[in-house]
């Protein structure tokens, strides 16, 4: 059999150029892989990709659209990256995102009125706490009772969505919304100022968060311990690192970041909480984090990349009448190609 002739041998070290080129190569490979599918719709792939590129970054408006689409992904991507680095499998960023949005709605729709300089930090903090505390529940179940967090975090997403559904149909429903199930809008003092087009303060907060997490990972005792637990839990425990406490801290940070993402989306872009606030930002955050190989700065880049594909695909579908679902295919293909490229940076392929 031909396949048995293909062997993977581990590399002793990854050359720097390879580590740099591999992600780009993966993206190029994914775009090439999608060429047949794009061609099938009857439009030249060059033309479609051209429209897509222009639609994503071809104008000031396009760039601002891409950045505002990337902002929530940055938050959920960071949330997933920080948890996965400690091997705490948080699949629930979607739920924590909504929890943050609920917190922003509770605090920011007239309950308290403060000047923006205080109002914005207040709703961000509330969102952080709501998201973090929501994830603390699965974390406690994991550390106390060894309940698998993949299951609990995933299922909590649906619980949260049902609660949000109740809130926007009931207690938080905006009476002036002509019957639409959406919550009362955030007051002006809590609304994020815009930067360029529809991109807003949330982007800056996301970038600062990424830098802080980078610092945490690289310099702080907590980041070191999280890495140690992720890389070898048994050795970390043997060395005296308090595993449970670190897992809980990781959960608080991870859920908190996703929660801030929800605040940013409500207070920065949409203005109010509704059930279609997130088209799966929490789940896409997993892809973002994996593409970034869990590096916080990489999360910024991969968020922008994925956002660009979605925004570009929207433009493509308007211009060339292509289904925008192509974006999902391209994003998925990129993830698969990225996984292969990660494999290739660690192993070399040998034919024998």
């Amino acid at each position, binding site marked *: 059999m031909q396949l048995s002739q293909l062997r993977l*041998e*581990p*590399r*002793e*070290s990854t050359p720097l150029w390879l580590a740099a080129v591999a992600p780009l190569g993966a993206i190029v490979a994914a775009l090439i892989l999608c060429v047949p599918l794009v061609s099938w719709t009857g439009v030249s792939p060059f033309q479609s990709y051209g429209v897509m590129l222009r639609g994503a970054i071809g104008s000031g408006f396009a760039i601002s659209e891409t950045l505002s689409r990337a902002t929530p992904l940055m938050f959920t991507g960071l949330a997933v990256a920080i948890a996965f680095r400690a091997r705490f499998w948080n699949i629930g960023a979607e739920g924590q995102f909504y929890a943050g949005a609920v917190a922003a709605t509770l605090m920011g729709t007239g309950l308290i009125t403060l000047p923006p300089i205080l109002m914005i930090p207040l709703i961000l903090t509330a969102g952080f706490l709501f998201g973090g505390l929501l994830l603390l529940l699965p974390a406690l179940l994991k550390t106390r009772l060894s309940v698998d967090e993949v299951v609990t975090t995933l299922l909590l997403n649906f619980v949260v969505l049902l609660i949000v559904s109740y809130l926007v149909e009931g207690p938080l429903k905006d009476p002036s919304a002509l019957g639409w199930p959406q919550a009362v809008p955030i007051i002006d003092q809590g609304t994020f100022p815009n930067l360029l087009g529809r991109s807003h303060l949330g982007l800056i907060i996301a970038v600062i968060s990424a830098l802080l997490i980078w610092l945490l990972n690289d*310099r*702080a*005792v*907590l980041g*070191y*311990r999280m*890495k*140690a637990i992720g*890389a*070898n839990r*048994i*050795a*970390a*425990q*043997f*060395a*005296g*690192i*308090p595993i449970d406490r670190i897992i809980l801290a990781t959960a608080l940070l991870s859920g908190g970041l996703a929660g801030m993402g929800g605040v940013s989306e409500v207070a920065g872009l949409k203005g109010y909480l509704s059930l279609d606030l997130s088209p799966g930002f929490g789940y896409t955050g997993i892809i973002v984090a994996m593409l970034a190989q869990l590096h916080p700065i990489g999360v910024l880049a991969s968020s922008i990349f994925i956002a660009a594909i979605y925004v570009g695909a929207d433009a493509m579908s308007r211009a060339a009448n292509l289904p925008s679902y192509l974006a999902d295919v391209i994003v998925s293909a990129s993830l698969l190609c990225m996984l292969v490229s990660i494999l290739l940076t660690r192993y*070399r392929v040998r034919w*024998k």
Partner: protein
Amino acid sequence: MNAESEIVLQLSQISKRFGRLLANDQISLELRRGEVLALLGENGAGKTTLMNILFGHDVADSGTIALFGHPLKDHTPRSALAAGIGMVHQHFTLADNLTVLDNVILGTEPLWRPWQNRRAARDRLMQLSKNFGLSVRPDARIGDLSVGERQRVEILKALYREVKILILDEPTAVLTPQETEALFATLRKLTQSGLSIVFISHKLQEVMAVSDRVVVLRSGKVVATVQTAATSPAKLAELMVGQPLPKMQREAMTPGQPVLTLNKVTVTASDDRPLLENVDLRVREFEIVGIAGVSGNGQGTLFNLVSGLAAPTQGTIELYGKPIAAPSPLGMVQAKVARIPEDRHTTGLIPDMSIWENLILETHQEPGFSQHGLLKREAAHEYAADLIQSFDVRCPSPDAIVRLLSGGNMQKLILGRVLSRNPKLILASQPTRGLDLGAVTYVHQQLLNAKARGAAVLLISEDLEELLSLSDRLYVLSQGRISESLKPEAVSVRDLGLMMAGKPGQVTDAA
């Protein structure tokens, strides 16, 4: 056997490269009918790679294999079996939930035949068992058997397939001395019946006892092929290491104050099975206390207990005369207990992290390495660079990833991490397992030096030679129970073996 015997297997100029490592470099050897050929070499010398190539797991980059004069092509484990090569791996490949008989016939019968010829199979198995002195119970489940019995099943499995060449990879690593003797007797019977055996080992005494010829491998090359009768252990050791080994300096000392005391300690598993039962143990300053035993008899629990991972169900542990209320790994580190775990990769180190990160694993929360929640990276780097130098760790830099180091260098990292803190108690489990001779000597010397400084050393090991040469006193652990304190000079290896098997004073029909 004699030099005129037929050559059954010939390896010519075998080379195999893994990345930058040349695991096998132009290896040539021949195996004659009816002989035991020992393949001697340290870990990493290329023994396992060579045998994996022979058995078809790996493909050589160059070189040829000839079986009974015919060259082998497109080699796979299946074709190796068909050609009459059998291999008993260090880690057995038996199905725990099946019986001995099922394991033996597994894979020898056509898949789609509705019935099995079990009676004939059983008769053949019993015949083989009788002929070669390999007693087994055909209807026992593998999961219920001891390690020695499982090994006999593995050998029978190969014989049942009518192998002509049997490869044994470190077969004695898990056996008591008596079981080893019995194995050697079997091997002699097998060669008398015309089988040829390749015996892979790094234990000199065993190679001397069982083999006809010895091929010595070093760094992937054949450095010597000698008749066993014409050589000596010292000569072989020198060939294996490439230089004469330094002599260890061991002095008798007067023990001081007790450092570690276990009073009637019992530990039970979650299903109430006793892991340790009524264990009394004392380790004092200036002494090395050895714990002998076949693994799985409570050593792991004893190690966890003293390293802070487990607490006694009954009884007390005292450190420096004070009982430990709530044992924890961190508590033990802070109480100056140096812990050297059995498994470097999973317990001792984090292979995917750098050397400096691993070296501060136990101490990063101390003011020397962190302040206000931030690591002092420069201090940690300097500390790592110092340890790398003083413990002679071969590595490119403190930033190197631990996974890339050799086993000996990994062990030096652990030693450096724990011994540089001047520990009062050293707990070492299998500290030299898988290390080459040079590194073994180094580890032993470090333990002796620590003892000379006044540390108490508790050494858990399966290597009797190691225990007898280092320990001032010995205990034997068998089925969770501990023996009286023994003097190494007053106890024979044979008696130790019996105690390890849990039958003190009995004479077995082994060997």
